[in-house]
Every structure is written in C-alpha cells, then in structure tokens.
C-alpha cells in the first residue's frame, strides 16, 4: 500500500562483472604477498646498501635511495609487513573480544549489561596512544605490544555496536520464533545473531583496519614500534621527515603508502557493505562460487520431484 513492492524482485542487471570482481582479488593477493613474501616485489633487500646515496627516483631505484644507499621502494614494500601485521592482528583481537563482549552484554540481564557496558565506556574514554604507551613502557616495544594496544583500544567500539544490534535482534521475530521451537540461547546466538551481526562487524572492522594502520604508523613514527634499521612506514617517515626539503622522496613514499592503505581499507568497507546485504549480495556460505562468477543454482523447472532437492542439499553440504 506504499511504494510498489520492488524489493521482492532480484535486480536483473547489476554490474558485478569486470572490475568489481577483479579488484578484491587483486587486493587480497597483494596483502598476502606483502605479508608473506615481500621479496617477490623487490629485488633488493630493505637493509642492503648500494653506492647511490640519496639518489632521487630513477629507473634503477623507483622511489630513490636514502642516506645509506638503501632502496626506498624496497623499504616501503618490506615496511608494509609490520604495519599490516600489527593492525590486522590488532583488529582481529578487537573483533573477537568486542563481539564476545557485545553478545554477552546484549543477551545478559539488565544489571550485568549495565556493568559490562559501563566498563566498555571507561575503556572507550582512554586514548589509544595512552594505552599503547603504558603497554610499551611495561612490556617493551615491538609488534606484540602494538597488537595488544590496538586490540584493547578497538574492542569497546565493536562491543558497543554489537551490543546495540543484539538488543535489536533479540526482539526480531525470527529470534522469537527460534525460542518458540525451543532453540537454546547459545544456539540462537550462533545461528541467528552472529550471521546477522556479521555485516556490521565486517564493515566496521575494515574501516578499523584503516585507523589501526594510522595508529601503528604513529607509534613507529614516535619510535615506539619497529626499531631501525628494520623497515617500517612510521619510522621511515620519521627518518625522512627532517630532510623533506632536500630529499622529498624519503618521507613521501612511506607516507603515501599509509594514505593509500587507509583509503583502500575504507573503500573495502563500502564494498563489503553492499556485498554482504542478504538481499542481493554475496552470502558468507556461498560467496566463493558467486565470486568466481557462477550463479547459484537457479530455480529449477517447477513440478520436479523432490528427489533432486535433497540430493542437491546433501551434495552441497558434503
């Protein structure tokens, strides 16, 4: 009785081809290479010195070289590992802790919810850098401290979002229906709450990666992360910042790397948001065949016996 119902129809001509499918694959491959085998991208090592000192970008050295003759391109490539490792792991810790805390608080009785959420509020009030500084002062610098700091810092954000969603989902009719047919609380949480929370969590996580990259770089910039001479965007940025007037390439390329990573993280978030919409996006359980361009099993011709359906189902599960 309102706007004509268009939602029931599957959009026919959604442009999911070409670029939309290639870009995520390229991104995943790139991140994996940077994390596991940066040597594939750069012939020279990050600490190998050459004869060219402070040479500007050239065909030989794409990003130029620094005071010790080290290749800036190589350092930028190898510098990705500590930053990406710290921020991805940190966000992973935050997602796990935040979702657990949020589901617990959302499903808990009112008093426990109040206790948990006020604790989360306190954590939220602490600046990331302060937490990191305390941790580094007590546990020493390094990737591990940064991961823990990021995890602690980002947990409250996830916890709050998840808690709000759980409270909303608890009154959803399909969750109530699960109660009616006697589903246990844990089962309902796993089968209904988590899958329906995933969209928000995944989208939030991907933009959190952007923030985490910025924070990790900041810590390294301040000298609290990876120690020189090991390559790292933050510390290289700090090292090159003083000579920006004379050798611009030293600080520019690590800086650009940080910027592009954050942009890509946020862009990925937007893409995931539409991709994870259950109405016309990928679904977690059948995302791979779709991603590779296969349509899901289309509607079979009506009137077929029930046999194929059951075998299909078993086949898909087995």
């Amino acid at each position, binding site marked *: *009785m*309102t*706007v*004509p*119902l*268009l*939602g*029931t*129809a*599957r*959009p*026919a*001509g*959604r442009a999911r081809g070409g670029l939309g499918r290639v870009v995520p694959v390229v991104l995943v491959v790139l991140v994996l290479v940077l994390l596991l085998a940066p040597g594939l991208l750069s012939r020279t090592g990050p600490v190998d010195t050459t004869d060219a000192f402070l040479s500007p970008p050239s065909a030989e050295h794409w990003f130029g070289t620094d005071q010790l003759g080290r290749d800036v391109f190589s350092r930028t490539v190898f510098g990705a590992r500590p930053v990406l490792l710290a921020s991805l792991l940190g966000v992973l810790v935050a997602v796990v802790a935040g979702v657990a805390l949020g589901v617990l608080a959302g499903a808990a009785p009112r008093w426990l919810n109040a206790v948990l959420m006020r604790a989360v509020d306190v954590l939220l009030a602490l600046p990331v850098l302060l937490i990191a500084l305390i941790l580094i002062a007590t546990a020493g610098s390094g990737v591990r401290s940064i991961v823990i700091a990021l995890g602690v810092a980002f947990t409250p954000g996830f916890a709050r979002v998840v808690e709000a969603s759980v409270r909303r989902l608890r009154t*959803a*009719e*399909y969750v*109530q*229906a*699960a*109660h*009616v*047919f*006697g*589903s*246990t609380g844990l*089962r309902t949480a796993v*089968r*209904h709450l988590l*899958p*329906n929370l995933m969209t928000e969590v995944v989208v939030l996580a991907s933009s959190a990666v952007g923030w985490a990259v910025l924070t990790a770089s900041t810590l390294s910039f301040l000298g609290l992360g990876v120690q020189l001479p090991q390559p790292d965007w933050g510390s290289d940025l700090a090292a090159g910042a003083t000579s920006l007037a004379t050798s611009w390439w030293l600080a520019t390329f690590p800086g650009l790397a940080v910027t592009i990573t954050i942009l890509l993280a946020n862009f990925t978030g937007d893409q995931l948001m539409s991709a994870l919409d*259950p*109405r016309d996006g990928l*679904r*977690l359980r059948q995302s791979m065949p779709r991603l590779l361009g296969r349509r*899901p*099993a289309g*509607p*079979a*011709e*009506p*009137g*077929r*016996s*029930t046999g*194929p*359906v*059951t075998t*299909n*189902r*078993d086949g898909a*599960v087995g």
Partner: protein
Amino acid sequence: MSLLEVVGLRTEIETRGGRVRPVDDVSFSVAAGETLGLVGESGSGKTMTGMSIIRLLPPGGAVVGGSVRFDGVDLTALDDDGVRRLRGNDIAMISQDPMTSLNPTRTIGSQLREAYRIHRHGSRQEADARAVEVLELVGMPRPRERLAAFPHELSGGMRQRVMIAIGLVCEPKLLIADEPTTALDVSIQAQILELLDDLKRRLSMAVVLITHDMGVIAGHADRVAVMYGGRIVEEAPTRALFADPQHRYTEALFESMPDLELDRQVDLATIPGTPPRLVALGPGCRFAPRCRFAQDDCRSADPDLVAVGTDHEHACFHPRGTTTTADLPRRRRREVAQGAGASGPVLEVTDVHKRFELRRRGLLGPRRAVQAVSGVSLQVHAGETLGIVGESGCGKTTIGRMLVGLEQPTEGTIAFEGSSFAGMGRLAFRRRRRDLQMMFQDSAAALDPRMTVAACVAEPLVAQQVGTRAERAAVVAELLDAVGLPADAADRYPHEFSGGQRQRIAMARALALRPKVVVADEPVSALDISVQAQILNLMRSLQDRFGLTYVVISHDLSLLKYLADRIGVMYLGRLVELGTSEEVYGAPRHPYTAGLIESIPLPDPTLERGSAALGGELPSAVDPPSGCRFRTRCPRATALCAEEVPVLAPDGDLHAVACHHPLTGAQPARTPLDLQPQGSEPR
C-alpha cells in the same frame, strides 16, 4: 465540470531492476463534493496515482505522459513552484501512518501553524486561531490545550485527526486520502471515516479515497475505480459496481473476501498467483495470468475501457455479463466432529495476569505497570479453532505469547494437557515447546534473512535434535509440498518470495515439529485480500490434515467469523465475551462486541450507516477504569459498572459474557459482595 480531471496519466520510476510503470494510462475525474474510491491491492499503482497528481514521486520517478487538470489548470505543465503552491493549499493529502507523518519533535500547534503560514502568511495569532478552528472541525476535544501537545501524547486516532486537520488548514478543494484508516482499529476507523464524510459535505471538497478495503469503499465512496497492475480495470458508481461487477478481477476480489454471511464449511474463493511486477510488461491484460476466464485474446492484446452502463466502464474481453458464471467447484470441508466439548481442553488458562513494569516517573515516583492482561481464564479444546479478537492494546498478543511460552504470566497458570509451565524444568519445557508453535504476523521479519528456506523450515528439527540430515530434508520437502510451494523453493532465500509465499514458509516451519497447537498472531493482516484467502484456505486444510488446534489472534472480526469455531472478545486486558462464533456474531451479549460488529465496514453500499458505534478511545492500560473497564465507552453503563468488576459468567444456555447489563439474556441480579469471585480485584 469536474474539479480534477486525469487523462491518460503515465508515471515511470527508474529502479535498479528496470523501468517500472506504476501508473499506466490512467484516466478519471472527480467533481466537487464527490468521493472517488481508488481501490486495489498493494502494487496496483493506486498510491502512485495519488502521488503523481501532486507530483510527490520517489527518486527516479516522473510523470511521462497524460494530463492532470485541476480547477482548470494543467498540473503537468506547471513548474515545481506552481505545484508546491497548490500542495497543502488547494490539494491536501493524508497519508496512512500518522505516527511517521507528524514530526515527533514539534508540537501539533506548531505543525498546524506551519501549514497555515506557508500559504497564508498570517500572523501567529491568526494561525493559532485557525489551528483551533480546524482542530474543532475534526472533533478534537479541548483543541486549544492540544496545541501544545506533542504527537506521542495523542492516540493513533487523535493523531490521524491532527493529520486531517493539517490537511484542512487552507480549505483545500481536493483531499487525497491514502489509506487514511488502515493503521487504525475498527472502532476508530469508523469514527475517522465518518469524519471524512462529514467534512466533505460541509466543505464540499472532492475526495480521492485510496484504499485496499472494499468495505471502506462501499460505505464512503460515490464512485469507485478498481486498479490492477497500474491500470484502471473498472470504474462505476459504487452501487452499480457492488451490485454488478463486470471485470473478472473485481468479481474475483469480491469472491475472495471473507464476509459475515459466508458459509464456514466452504473454502474461500482464491485468486491464484500474485500481482504482476510492473517491469517490462508485454501486451495483454495484466490480470490474464491469474484469470480463470483468460483466453488467447487476453494474452495478446490490451483490453480498453468500454462503457456498459451509466458511468460504468470496464476493461475486460470476457466480462461477467457475457458468459454464464460457472460456479467454481470449491472444496467443502470434511465434516469432522468439531471442537467444543468433543474432547478435553488441551490448553487451560486460569486467571492469568501479565503486568509489564514501566520506568518510574522521577526517582521516587510510584511504581507503574501496564496491565496487559488481567484475569483471563479460558480453555482451548483439541481440534478447535479459538479466535481472540480485540482492538490494539487489548492484550490479545500477550495472551498468545504466553500460550507458547514467550512470556511468563505474572499471576495465574497456563497448563498444556494438564501440566503447568511454571515449575517445569528447562529441558522438559524445551520438549514441551514441540507441541506449541507460533505463526507470526510479519513473515518477512519472522524468517532469518540469511537462511535458505530449507534451513528455515528444518530449523525447529535441528534445534530439537530430531532426525538425521536426510530425514530432515525429507520432512522439509514434504512440508513445502503440503503448504503448496514448489520443491525448488528449498534452496532459495525468504526475500525472493512474496508475502503470501513467505507466510506459507512460516507455516511450514511452524508445522515441522508436528505441533498440537498453533498460535497464529494476525496471520494474514499483512497480506492482500486475494492472497489472504489462499492462506486462510491453507490453514484450514492443514488443520484437517494434521489435526491441529488453532488459536487465531486477530483484529478482524469477519476473518475470525470465517475461521474460528469459538471466539473470545478481549477489551483492555479482560475477556469480555466468549462463545461459538455463531453466537458471538448472531447475538452479541456484550455492548463492546456489538459495537465492534457494527463498526466493521461492510462491502455493501446499500446498507444505511448510522454513526460510529463505538465512541471514545481505549483508556490507558496503566491506569484502567475501575469496575468494568468498558464503562467509559459503554452506552449502558451505570453506577454499578464503576464499582464492581463484572465476571465472565455463562447464563443458562447463553454464552459467557462479562457485563452487568448484557444485551441478551437476563440481567444478573446484583451479586452480594461476599460472593464476589476470585477473579475480580478491587481497583
């Protein structure tokens, strides 16, 4: 000369799914002082027609053809400013949901003033005076005080009155009322419709009444245009249309409505299939795929409107008048030994109370609680269908939720097959749930959007750890077949189905555990009439097949009259009347039941209509009236009603009623105070 003349109107909306044409070559006219009813199912384009007139289309929408002449001006040729000057000034629109169409952060006074000052540029005093005037016009009690009220402080009916008042501020010549009463209770609906009629007469406005409800149309429109698939398929004076519908769609619509005279033993007529999507339609009658009279010419050419009588036009190649109507062979129900008394009660509700605690007002304010259900006792017998009817806020949904164990009663007990839920162990309770299932109102919300249909239907089995994977798959296939869905539905997702199909999926899921009792909370109120009938028939055939007991909760009395064996009428947390559906409808004993029955808009324009049967509004359940809770709206109320709570008591052969002054049967002598039963609490 008509006030509004629409000729060949076409509207298109660009969507991701393609170009939708919700209004396709629509022509009609409305004269001053006349009401044109625009009737159709959801997606038939009736709302978009109204929106196209005042050019309030959704993003991507545009009027692409035809003309709209209003008071001698062609609206399609006007620029945006010109249309804006007309909107709210000469043309007013009332929309369906007064909850969302009033701004919750501003007082109704300021919203009324805004409507006035946009077009009249008067002073604040003038605007205030006008606001009070229109509020009086729409029957708002104490209008001057209400100017400072916020929308949430008013009831739904009062908010709709405010919406109408805002529409009337500038004395429009044309009022477009888009489902003005769909969100309201029957008794309030009757009040609002009567108000619209009265205003039309007094202000000699033209009214376009958009609705899906034939009953509303019958009583309040002078002429009716039936829309289907973006087209007007039949247009006629109301009486002519109801007496002699020509188009096959109109005919089918009438047949599929459950009305009060229907034989309960016969299945409802249905219209198979679902309304068309208005994307890339080929030539041919849009109703042809669902029409049992369709022939080749229907599928190859568009029928044009042809006149068949005074002002009566239809667009059908094979109208009702030309062929003899072969009566559809309708399935008769198997005569089963039904319901009441045949066997013992499966569910026993004994003096159940449910209170919901509210937040205190202020730190040290008194404890407050909503008395959702106060002292209801009833029994549900095996194999019967018990209907529970009442207006919103009467506690019928809470009863249903308590029956399936979603809520626990604050006081009283609910027992299934003799054993009470309270004190049952967790595990035993979980097993018990197999026997009690629920169908929810909104099938879109009741199915997890991330599960396939097969997973949804199999879920109760998985949760209860019944059967192996293969066995469950077999059960799912069987159930989908039982509810009339194709087998390939199993691997699709709920959003790929229409509302009616989703309700079938929900039904299949409710039946997966082979329950004994199914509680259905407004099972069809979200569906179109033609689809409603399909679901109602399905519910009845499944009842016969699986031996189910139904508790159907609804606000719709004609639906329950058709579906239920016994009916309980609830008012503000109390059961006021309980009897077989024939008894309750044929000879209602409680004044509230009688008023409710009278408020139903009947699809019969020849009936004389009195004033709205139930005046006033539902009192607050936080602080209900003393004694009989209905006394504030009851024409028969006496001092006794304020003092003493009437008890639900049968009177000889008559069905039970909780009233001191029942409409039929002896008036009970005043019960001595020392015999006052347990169920009545002094308040």
